């Protein structure tokens, strides 16, 4: 079977895991948390509720949901071990892993975009910006952030037993992701904050942050597959 066959096998294997019950529970929890926080923000002070709800969603919900989905795509194991059931029959491990990373990145991007839209819808009030445009921009930023987290967590999944290395970027993002300095610029949250109108890391333009998020998803995902190759 060709390299494309290996990628497809990895993608379908991880895709089935992402359609399983564990991943569904993570998505439902993320959606519930986002909706609840947005409703609370709107009922507390309608002015600026959308911004505050989005900030909370990008700070906590999106990283955690992306983490859960990436872990599920790799069957909560090291990426190398997760690729084994397909690779054992003669498929290249790197190809299978690349398919798994693709599934994880796409799944994280889709759910993160969905959660960001939900935050906008639930927090929308009389003084908020136009709903359609706000929802569209938020979904695009959410998808970029989710994909970047997918790349980071996939790379983390290649380290330590059972892929526990994926905890490192999550912890770093929770601790330093709000910084506008060099460390913050290496993590997805600061760029997502820039894209939703917050402080820019290292004074970067919004297009720069968008490009960095795409680059993180691509480069880190490929690096994860490279580290898993035969």
């Amino acid at each position, binding site marked *: 079977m060709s390299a494309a066959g290996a990628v497809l096998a990895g993608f379908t294997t991880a895709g*089935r895991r992402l359609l399983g019950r564990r991943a569904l529970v993570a998505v439902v929890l993320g959606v519930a948390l986002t909706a609840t926080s947005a409703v609370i923000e709107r009922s507390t002070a309608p002015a600026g509720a959308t911004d505050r709800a989005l900030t909370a969603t990008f700070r906590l919900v999106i990283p955690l949901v992306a983490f859960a989905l990436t872990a599920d795509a790799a069957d909560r194991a090291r990426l190398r071990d997760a690729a084994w059931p397909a690779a054992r029959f003669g498929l290249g491990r790197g190809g299978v892993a690349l398919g798994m990373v693709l599934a994880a990145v796409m799944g994280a991007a889709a759910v993160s975009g969905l959660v960001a839209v939900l935050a906008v819808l639930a927090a929308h009030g009389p003084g908020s910006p136009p709903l359609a445009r706000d929802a569209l921009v938020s979904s695009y930023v959410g998808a970029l952030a989710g994909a970047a987290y997918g790349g980071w967590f996939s790379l983390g999944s290649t380290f330590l*037993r059972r892929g526990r290395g994926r905890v490192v970027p999550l912890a770093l993002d929770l601790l330093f992701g709000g910084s506008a300095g060099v460390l913050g610029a290496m993590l997805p949250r600061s760029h997502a904050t820039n894209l939703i109108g917050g402080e820019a890391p290292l004074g970067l333009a919004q297009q720069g942050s968008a490009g960095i998020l795409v680059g993180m998803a691509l480069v880190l995902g490929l690096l994860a597959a490279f580290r898993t190759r035969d």
Partner: protein
Amino acid sequence: MTSREPSTSPEDDLPEEEASQGDAAQGSAPRDDLSRDDLSQGDAAQGAVAAQEAEAPPPLAAVTPPLVRLERVVASDDAGPHGDARGRLHHAEAAFAPGVHMILGTPEDGTLALAHVLSGRTRPSSGRVRVGGHDPARHAKTRARLGALLGAPELPDTRTVAAVVEMAQRARGEARPSAAALLDGRGLGRLLARRPVSLSFAEARAVELALALSTPEPLCVVLVEPFAEVTSLDAAALRVELHALAEKGACVLVLTSSRTDAWALGDHVHQLDRGVLLPALPAGRGGEIVVQVEEPRPGEEAAGGGVRALATALTEVPGLQAVAWEEAQRAPQVPSGGDTPHPTPPAPTLALSTLRVRAADLDAASLSILDAATRAGVVLASIRTATPPPTRRQVGRTVQPGGGR
């Protein structure tokens, strides 16, 4: 692992790196120095036996280059709780020629770790594994010709079992994949429409076993306990199938903790003991078995073990004609000087004693020795037949310091 040292070995078909190591391929290299003393004791008779062997055609396993090779492999499995290691390999060395090889041991002895490195599931921490000249953990094409039934089933999560089988067949390069043709023939057709995750442990192992045995042009088939926890298993048919695979040139490695299964099936039976792979256990009718036994380290004598404990345990075993031993002599410790307040004790060295057992049935005697070693808590360094068979006078000469019965 070949059980005999062939006089010639056709290395031409091997990859370069394999051919260059041909001399070391026929056994366990680190053990060679351990058994050299014993071999030298039979020099007088060796010439005559070598002449006899030159006339007779050597056994197939003796002239076929090894297909599977382990070189000082250190590895562990992840079968314990929370992914911890359940067993380990400690510098395992072996070379397996085509044939059916039984490896006797428990997961704690490292059978799962061995199966994982042989199948390419994991890479060893150090050392090298070669199947057909390639590392199966790094070479996908080798894995396509390698069938594996590991301790726990690991099937890809697809829609149905049929999809798993056909994916595997396509990955292995089979032109016309057909899950029904494979599983119906083994009485597993009812599983075709099931989801892999819905299979019981024994059903999933049965599917894995079917896939392993149907590997096209197999180089190696690694099976962990294939006679246990497998649905719809016909043990007799499986034995025939394994021998048929071996006759086609595959190296069939069966890892089991069942001595009955081991002796019922294997052309060569090896023991994996606490991470160390011993050479093939002696088998056949009549002869002498030479066992090397690790003596307890200084200060650990109270815990038991050693050649005397093994010899004592063997006195209760019926069917043995003679037991004799030669106890290893440790270098005496140098008394510490009065000027040194805290003298450094010399590092304890490994002392190996030799035990010789004569028996009419080597299969039964080998089992008895393993049982006795387990009972007495004795660590065996090697176990082999005495080559060439020494005369009675030579036996008497080699066991001077020890006793016998």
